[in-house]
Structure formats: structure tokens, C-alpha cells
């Protein structure tokens, strides 16, 4: 790992827009979560019991940590959306539909400093956990090739893996 390294991510505007939509939904899910044991299994996966065999200790740990953890998740999601904002903004090209279409396939560069990179890594990993919960993935081999939602899941995994490699300096 190289501290202070700047990672440049290449995304089409369409990809950036899609990703911003997913992260926005993720942030909304976090905002809707209150105190206590979450009802939603996808959220529960983000704040799992820290004690497997001690319900009292698990509850106490949750009481002390859950709110802050979800707030850090929201802050991470906010940082990701902030770095995506420029790539998603199509207003510069006016109202001609042909211009908008061309703009969507245009490639944009997103520059991530160390803090933003960590926010991206944690957020993409968490979005995958939520998607996996929605898709009912309980084994590594669970995959429905013609279900487009698995395409989204794979795509986030591909982007996460690329960022991990960049963060670790494998390229």
C-alpha cells in the first residue's frame, strides 16, 4: 500500500449515474434504520451480533456501536456521491436528447484520494452485501446468469476488485 496515492477511476457517465442511484438507495436504507435490532436482514448483516453465544453482551455491544456505525456508513456513502456528482451532471450539454445520449457513453475520470478511496471500498462492499441479501445469496455459487440483478451484483464486485488492486498497488 502506498500512503497518499491517488487512484483514478474511469467510468462512463451512464455507469456513474447507475452507481449514484444505487448508493443513494443504500443511504436511504441506512437513514430508515432506527435503534435496536434491525428488522431488515440486509441491514442486520451490516451490524451483526458481535457475540455469537451471549445475547446480553451482543445487545450491549449493539447499543454502544450501532448508531455510530450506521452514521459512518452514511458519511461514506455521502463521500462516494460527492465524488460522483460531477460525472453524473449532464446539464452542461443542454437539452438536446442526442447530446444527452452521447454524453452518457462518454468516459469520465474520478480521482480518489486515500480517504475517498476507503469510503468507496467500504461502500461498494456494503452495497454488495445488501444486494446479496436481496438476491438470497447464501453460497458463493449462488448465481442466476439471466437475472439482470446478478449482473449489477457482478459489476459492483468487478469495480470493487479493481479498486482493491489499485489501493494495494498491484497494477
Amino acid at each position, binding site marked *: 500500500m502506498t500512503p497518499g496515492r491517488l487512484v483514478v477511476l474511469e467510468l462512463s457517465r451512464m455507469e456513474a449515474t447507475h452507481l449514484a442511484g444505487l448508493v443513494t438507495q443504500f443511504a436511504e436504507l441506512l437513514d430508515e434504520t432506527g435503534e435496536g435490532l434491525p428488522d431488515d436482514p440486509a441491514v442486520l448483516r451490516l451490524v451483526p451480533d458481535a457475540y455469537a453465544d451471549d445475547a446480553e453482551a451482543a445487545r450491549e*455491544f449493539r447499543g454502544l456501536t450501532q448508531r455510530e456505525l450506521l452514521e459512518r456508513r452514511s458519511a461514506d456513502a455521502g463521500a462516494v456521491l460527492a465524488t460522483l456528482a460531477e460525472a453524473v451532471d449532464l446539464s452542461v450539454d443542454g437539452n438536446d436528447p442526442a447530446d444527452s445520449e452521447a454524453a452518457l457513453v462518454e468516459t469520465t475520470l474520478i480521482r480518489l484520494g486515500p480517504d475517498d478511496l476507503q469510503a468507496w471500498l467500504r461502500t461498494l462492499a456494503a452495497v454488495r452485501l445488501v444486494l446479496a441479501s436481496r438476491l438470497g445469496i447464501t453460497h458463493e455459487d449462488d448465481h442466476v446468469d439471466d437475472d439482470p440483478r446478478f449482473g449489477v451484483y457482478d459489476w459492483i464486485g468487478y469495480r470493487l*476488485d479493481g479498486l482493491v488492486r489499485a489501493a*494495494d498497488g498491484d497494477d
Partner: protein
Amino acid sequence: MAPAIAPERAEEIDLGTTLDPHRPWQTVVWNDPVNLMSYVAHVFREYFGFSRDRAELLMLAVHHEGHAVVAEGAREQMELHARAMHDYGLWATVREAPR
């Protein structure tokens, strides 16, 4: 970054029988079908400051054995580690070291 005990050492301790009532506590990371192997190894390097090789071995232990002890020590410290692992989306628990 807090120092952590290597899994090899944790296993040595597991094998020992002791009458000491003050058993150490452990942070355990469990395998899940979602987190990428590259990401889990990255988290171990990033958070614990492990070498690439050590992080890879620990990640493989989680993957193949279903879980691995990533740290051992005082309970409060193990809770901090578990909280940090949860921040990264890893499934971690705290326990007293098995006898």
C-alpha cells in the same frame, strides 16, 4: 493501528491447557459468501498493518476453515477490532479464547 497476534500464535495458545481464569479474548472473522477474497486480504493489511503474505494466509484461513482468529488480547480491544471489521462489512465476533 493496534498490534495483533498472528494466527499461528493464537493456535499455539489454543492447544495449551491452562488453569488461568483470565483467559484472553479473541476477535474472530467468519467466512461469508459475498465479500471478495481480495477485499478481505486488503482489510487485514489496511487495518491490522499485516504484510501481504500474512494477510493472504489469514484470508485463506477464513475462506477454507470458515473462520480465523485475527487478534487476541483484552476484551475491550477485541471489541474495538470487531467494530472496525463491521465497518468494513466483515462478519466478526468476540469470544473468550477456547480452552
